């Protein structure tokens, strides 16, 4: 989000909250989120690729909504697949926004595909929704489980396509056949999809695990949950089970909320646009590292990068949380003083908390259980090692499918494993030593120092493009190599 967008959303909040009745606010949030999401996908110059991505986005939401509908008592006569009036309104809104996008795009170009695609999308959406509503509940249940898997696989494929540089470039070149601008050959970028994908997958995985509310979710609520504009571009990743009930019990914009929200936005703006953007001028980058000759210089660049990435990301989260408050939604916290934690486990409980929670719930715990329950149950330490390393490697790959993001994840996975082993084997000693004040303080500050440096060194993989660069810098950081 740009400063202009943030300021616009912030100033629009009181108008919206005080001007629209509580009953109508979720509808307003749906329209606003749809418009914002499609704006972020398309930008000011809409090309066919943007229309395709928008259709895909809305198609995914509608599919998931259909899946999570309750199926009644499983008799042909009592089919509950009928679309409710509220869902009908939601479909009309989606259709209108899609047509608006097509119309807007058509104003900029004479490429007819831009006009035809939204119409085709709307027709498909209508036929699809109608056909799905005719399916008998018993058949539907059998289909739904398979479709849920198919959708998860589709989303993972989309994520891989977007995050694997070669594939992203391939799709960019393929889908921008009608674009003559300088970006025609650049990789395809789908702003916010990493977060959208994880929200949708959370719903699908909860659905498969039977953790969803019995009444399912309305199309409106699901759309707002997936596309909620304050959290669309940079999270946090909320859970539907927490978000949607709050959406349906709208909070008024009280004076306290106004103060909390606007204070949080101000703090976020300062962190992102003053501190992080200033640090970005001189923090670790491939060019700057190449030109830096001294070991001390490299350490300074590394520290600056560590703080830049923290202030950048946590600043955006503050803005999202603040905007959420103004619009009546309490989004989950994402950062909580991560750099002053005494071990890497506590760091991950306070760094990008919603992402790490997502992976803990939907990958780490099920995977650990799978290993524990498997007939070839490996030793305990192997289970911990595999679970930690694969979880963190996946978190790394979520940022982009490159060797360096993978290595960054593995670095943290190994760190978490080593911490776990060390903590398990030194618990008694730690308890004895930390019984008195000064040893406790010394150990605490020492641990914070070591943890911060462990995390900071990990950023070398995160910030640089290739493993060779990273290894060169790592050796130079410790005074080895030229």
């Amino acid at each position, binding site marked *: 989000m740009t400063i202009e967008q943030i300021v616009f959303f912030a100033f629009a909040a009181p108008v919206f909250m005080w001007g629209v009745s509580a009953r109508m606010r979720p509808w307003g949030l749906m329209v606003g989120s749809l418009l914002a999401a499609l704006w972020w996908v398309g930008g000011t110059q809409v090309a066919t690729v943007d229309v395709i991505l928008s259709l895909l986005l809305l198609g995914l939401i509608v599919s998931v909504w259909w899946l999570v509908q309750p199926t009644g008592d499983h008799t042909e006569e009592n089919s509950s697949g009928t679309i409710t009036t509220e869902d009908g309104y939601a479909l009309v809104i989606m259709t209108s926004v899609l047509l608006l996008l097509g119309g807007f795009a058509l104003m900029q170009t004479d490429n007819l595909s831009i006009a035809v695609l939204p119409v085709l999308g709307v027709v498909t959406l209508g036929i699809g929704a109608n056909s799905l509503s005719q399916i008998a509940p018993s058949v539907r249940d059998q289909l739904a489980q398979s479709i849920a898997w198919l959708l998860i696989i589709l989303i993972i494929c989309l994520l891989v396509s977007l995050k694997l540089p070669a594939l992203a470039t391939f799709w960019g070149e393929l889908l921008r056949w009608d674009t003559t601008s300088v970006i025609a050959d650049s990789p395809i970028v789908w702003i916010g999809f990493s977060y959208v994908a994880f929200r949708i997958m959370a719903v699908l995985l909860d659905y498969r695990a039977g953790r969803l509310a019995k009444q399912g979710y309305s199309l409106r609520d699901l759309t707002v949950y997936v596309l909620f504009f304050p959290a669309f571009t940079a999270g946090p990743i909320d859970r539907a089970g927490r978000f949607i009930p709050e959406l349906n019990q709208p909070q008024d914009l009280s*004076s306290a909320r106004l*103060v*909390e929200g606007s*204070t949080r936005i101000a703090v976020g703006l300062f962190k992102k646009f003053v501190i992080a953007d*200033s*640090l970005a*001028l001189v923090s670790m980058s491939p060019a700057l590292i190449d030109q830096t000759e001294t070991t001390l*210089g490299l350490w*300074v660049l590394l520290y600056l990068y560590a703080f830049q990435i923290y202030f950048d990301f946590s600043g955006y989260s503050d803005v999202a949380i603040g905007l959420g408050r103004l619009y009546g939604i309490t989004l989950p916290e994402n950062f*909580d003083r991560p750099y002053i934690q005494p071990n890497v486990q506590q760091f991950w409980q306070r760094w990008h908390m919603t992402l790490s929670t997502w992976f803990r719930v939907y990958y780490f715990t099920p995977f650990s259980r799978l290993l524990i329950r498997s007939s070839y149950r490996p030793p305990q330490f192997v289970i911990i090692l595999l679970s930690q390393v694969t979880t963190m490697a996946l978190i790394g790959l979520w940022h982009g499918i490159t060797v360096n993001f993978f290595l960054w994840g593995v670095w943290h996975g190994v760190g978490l494993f080593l911490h776990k082993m060390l903590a398990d084997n030194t618990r008694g000693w730690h308890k004895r030593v930390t019984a008195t004040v000064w040893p406790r303080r010394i150990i605490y500050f020492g641990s914070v120092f070591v943890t911060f440096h462990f995390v900071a060194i990990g950023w070398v993989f995160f910030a640089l493009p290739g493993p060779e660069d990273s290894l060169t810098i790592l050796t130079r950081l410790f005074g080895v190599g030229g």
Partner: protein
Amino acid sequence: MARWDWLTKHKDLYTRYFILRVVLKATGLFVLFNLIFVFAQPMNMINDVTLYNTVFPGRDRLPYSDNPQAAYNLSLGSLDAMFASHIITENPVEDEFRVAIIGDSSVWGVLLDNDQTLSSCLNTLDLKSADGRRITVYNLGYPVLSVFKDVLLLEEGLNYDLDAVIWLTTLQALFEVEQLRHPILNDNASRVRAFIAEYNLDLDSDTLPESTWWDRTIVGQRRALSDWLRFQAYGIAWWMTGEDYASARYLGAPVRNLPDSQNILNQPQIDVGDLIGQDVLAWDVLMAGYELVAMREVPVLLVNEPIYRSDGLNNELRYNEYYPRWAYDEYRAYLAQLADDNGWPYLDLWDSLEPATFTDTPFHYEADVVCDVAELISPHLLAMID
């Protein structure tokens, strides 16, 4: 929970009346601070505050960049901020003989690293003054073709214990209409206006922008504040890398095949054979510069800088895309005469370099020959100061 609740923990206080008071107070404070800013003008003080020469080493050349992110450098408006970052503001070393070299982009070192500039080459010659002091040459060049800009930088540079000055110039830097056009002169308009008045120069100071009341507020000065902050941040990268220039693009060699025209580039109003007579050159600015140094008894070596001389089409009419032969010859003759009449030490290096050694314009030359130019200058410098 992120620990921001200390800011907002007294929720029971947050009535609409409270918010109204906060908004009113914030507005009041905003207006008040802007008013204080208007009257106190703290930018002058802020521009003097710098991390250069203390936390980071001072810069070898004045801040300038057309590619800040890659160069870790920034074009600043304020002369105070520019000089505050420069190594010249460090206290003089005991046995140092301080020489400033002023001029345009060829002196600043466009397309050159900071260890390839004329000042750097002069320093590597390890020159000594007659009394045995080590000569240190400071680069006060700036990539703008205007002698007024040279004088402005000279005026500021003289505050830093200069013992001598080398002043490189060329015809293009002397056109009156070019003198006040550039951002560095517009950004220091009040200083320029005062200088014009003090030396009674034949320049129209009305073309300089007037500073409005709004310009003097925090809002009006936000760009200067932001630039100051960014420039301090770039100091870290300067310290780490020693880099202060990134060539955005190589523009290609100077034009070899020249137009069949007797006009001076961008000055078509000047009649052939009448450059000096038409009073279009700012000789008075040059003279004012000499008056300025004369008051401090600082000797100046005036150098007519090397130019590209094309050997291509129409070279019998023109030396290069800027200069027809008649105009440049008139200028050279007059400059030599002026120096002779006033007893100024003068060195004409106009044809000292081969055409193949020039890079993108008729004034920029390759790093390899910069030190050759320095070697041509050094004996004259030594002769002047002895």
